[in-house]
């Protein structure tokens, strides 16, 4: 690993993408993720990659879709209402089973929403980022080091499953700065080798026996719609055993569990120590991937001794807490600590909710 560098979240994600071999980025400006396209605009020419600012979100996400079809590691990013516009192409990527990394730096909503940080897109991200019932692996970092690691991982996973992957960030992790250690960049040879493995890619005839053309979803005569849905459904099911990822912190003896993801995850984690100092045995469950949801983390809890779970998120009404409720299924009390409208979840709200569950 290299030395630690003090970086802004948006730039750390973009730089890691370049190092992971991303050679195509198309985007359209929207706060709070403008530092992503700005960084790529400067960086892509240095590595022989392509940066395009499309005429709209719809255009830029379709460009990312096209670049992936040509076998290039491809990315697009936006924020909340911009992701809604990109959802048409995201669904097409999933339909065509193309590897694209999509990043959402969440802001307020619904509608255009405030430009301040939020976690209002959880349900959209994990349940339906477009039509047709497809799924994506959804990675959500709490720290900027994790944002770096997960950006790298997102490209690997996108290629592994040949499917879009969603990096679920927020305006806070996008604009804050924190020290990070960046991975060593893939060499041009390594980038070319990855592309060469994609024998399905539409690269034209180039002296080969036939033209290679990517078919859009539903247009491929070699596979029926139902066969395709069954095939994809099987992959989504497999993820529930192979792709679950979460942090489990001081849960063994816990009487109260704090649970949160993304930026709220690190805030909740710091509340554990405060509660422990007061004599309340708190623990933390922090999904690193919010899809597939880590059911097993909650299933492992001892519900006989547990006094309750506090779900913390920057969304009103709660969205993440619904998934927790679905797993817990009435076996313990669930409380929420929520914020929205750009107000960062305050640690004290989580601490108070935990105290209340413990009758203190």
């Amino acid at each position, binding site marked *: 690993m290299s030395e630690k560098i003090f970086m802004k979240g948006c730039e750390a994600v973009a730089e890691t993408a370049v190092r992971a071999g991303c050679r195509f980025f198309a985007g359209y400006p929207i706060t709070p993720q403008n530092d992503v396209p700005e960084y790529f605009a400067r960086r892509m020419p240095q590595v022989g990659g392509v940066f395009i600012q499309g005429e709209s979100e719809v255009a830029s996400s379709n460009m990312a879709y096209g670049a992936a079809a040509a076998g290039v590691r491809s990315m697009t990013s936006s924020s909340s209402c911009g992701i809604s516009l990109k959802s048409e192409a995201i669904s097409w990527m999933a339909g065509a089973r193309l590897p694209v990394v999509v990043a959402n730096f969440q802001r307020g909503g619904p509608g255009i929403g405030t430009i301040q940080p939020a976690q209002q897109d959880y349900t959209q991200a994990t349940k339906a980022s477009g039509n047709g019932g497809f799924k994506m692996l959804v990675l959500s970092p709490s720290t900027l080091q994790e944002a770096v690691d997960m950006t790298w991982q997102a490209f690997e996973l996108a290629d592994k499953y040949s499917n879009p992957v969603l990096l679920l960030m927020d305006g806070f992790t996008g604009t804050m700065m924190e*020290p990070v250690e960046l991975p060593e960049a893939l060499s041009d040879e390594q980038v070319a080798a990855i592309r060469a493995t994609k024998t399905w890619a539409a690269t034209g005839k180039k002296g080969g026996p036939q033209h290679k053309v990517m078919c859009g979803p539903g247009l491929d005569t070699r596979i029926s719609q139902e066969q395709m849905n069954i095939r994809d459904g099987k992959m989504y099911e497999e993820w529930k055993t192979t792709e679950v990822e979460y942090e489990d912190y001081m849960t063994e003896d816990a009487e109260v569990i704090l649970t949160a993801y993304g930026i709220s995850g690190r805030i909740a984690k710091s509340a554990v120590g405060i509660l422990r100092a007061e004599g309340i045995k708190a623990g933390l469950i922090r999904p690193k991937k919010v899809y597939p949801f880590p059911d097993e983390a909650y299933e492992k809890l001892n519900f006989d001794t547990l006094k309750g779970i506090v779900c913390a998120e920057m969304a009103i009404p709660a969205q993440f807490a619904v998934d927790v409720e679905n797993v817990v299924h009435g076996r313990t009390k669930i409380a929420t600590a929520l914020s929205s409208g750009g107000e960062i979840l305050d640690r*004290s709200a989580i601490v108070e909710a935990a105290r209340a569950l413990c009758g203190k």
Partner: protein
Amino acid sequence: MERSFIIAGFGGQGVMVMGQLLSYTACETTEKFVTYFPSYGAEMRGGTANCYVVISDDPVGAPKVSQADYVVALNDPSMARFKDAVAPGGTIFVNSSVVTIEEDREDVHVVKVDAGTIAYELGNLKVLNLVMVGAIIGYTEVLPAENVLQTAFKKLGAKRPELNPINEAAFKRGYAIGKAAKEGK
């Protein structure tokens, strides 16, 4: 140990530079953990700009806190907005050249720094933020003074090396005020 700062002032007073100077010093010259979060929004000219910095021996949990250990107020609107955001026992650093609002809480300390006047005396009003950084370091000792100065030379001196001497003078004037306030506490 974790120490949190809210730094606020007019856009153009060097608020973000102050936060970044502390943060870069922590990241590049110490083993400490650090986070920096700038407020951004539909700020109007003449509005307030502010940033949050947390410097800690352990990984930082909340990069933005509602109750900070230290508030730095460079103008009246910032003082009005953030004076109640200091935790009990905390300290407010005030640019007393322009701030007229008084803090009447008894559970917080106030360090008045005539930063605007000092910067004016030094011949460049822009260095008022370095005066304030000096005062913060002299008072809190959150980072080694020499490291902060070296980082200032490296970051600010990269484009304007001719300003290094005045930046240093500004820092040292502030540092003396911060140190004296600490000793007189």
